[in-house]
């Protein structure tokens, strides 16, 4: 039984991975490829690790598999966000079929300022300060 579940988990995980791979191969532009790779890749890895956890069924292995999943969930979207943002800002071509781009008009490539379009409106009396933490 457990072997069956392990097998199913493995194969479905691998399917996600191969879909991700197919996705980045086939999809027409950077953001769409990222949709495929980031999520499906992570999903695949998570499923495989679940299979591993189940297969060994030892506390140490399970614990590590959980740790792995937490780490993947934390790091994958960050990487995706950073690349996506950088790719977009450096002018990666969007697919012709893109129907909308609300970011383009608010982004100034010269100053790299990105407006929200809500400037001047306050909300709930909260002062809005751009983050001052970065130095560089």
């Amino acid at each position, binding site marked *: 039984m457990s072997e069956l579940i392990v097998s199913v988990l493995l194969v479905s995980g691998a*399917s*996600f991975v191969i*879909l991700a791979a*197919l*996705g980045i191969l086939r*999809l*027409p*532009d950077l*953001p*769409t490829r990222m*949709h*495929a790779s*980031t*999520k*499906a890749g*992570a*999903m695949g890895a998570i499923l495989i690790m679940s299979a591993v956890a189940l297969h060994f069924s*030892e*506390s*140490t*292995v399970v*614990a*590590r598999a*959980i*740790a792995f999943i*937490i780490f993947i*969930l*934390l790091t*994958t*979207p960050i990487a*995706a*966000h950073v690349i*996506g*943002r950088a790719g*977009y*800002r450096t002018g990666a071509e*969007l*697919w012709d*079929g*893109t*129907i*909308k*781009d*609300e*970011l*383009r008009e*608010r*982004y100034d490539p010269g100053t790299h*300022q*990105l*407006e*929200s*379009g*809500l*400037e001047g409106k306050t*909300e709930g009396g*909260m002062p*809005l300060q*751009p*983050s001052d933490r970065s130095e560089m």
Partner: protein
Amino acid sequence: MTGMFWNLLLALAWAALSGSFTGMNLLAGFCFGYFALMVLQKQVPALKGYSRRLPRLMAFLFFFIRELVKSNLRVAYDIATPVWHMKPGVIAFPLEARSDMEIMFVSSLISLTPGTLSLDVSDDRRVLFIHAMFLQDEEQLRADLRELERRILKVMR
């Protein structure tokens, strides 16, 4: 308070990683966690009211995994079939989330959900720009995103 929370979490994670939940090991984890936090002291933003969040967290996890599978399948379907069904685009999504941690979690979870990808946050941190793969029904998408954000904030606040 916040430091204590993280510290405990780290201690647990330590024990989980090493696979041994003995008292000694938890203590060791606590120590190393403390060490790690010490390094970060100044930078960790305040977090409060941890105790209320655990049940909400559970509920949220359930919700999220469902979303994850659902949208994953949708993306998978489009990739696997020869014709593109997608209508991608970038939308500006006004944020409810305010603190750094909230914004990070919201954007991360949106990114993790297939079909949506957080590209950027406006300089005043009020709008999240999201690349969505399926903009066939933008209103529905916005509603879904808002629901996701609401649930996250519920866990975090």
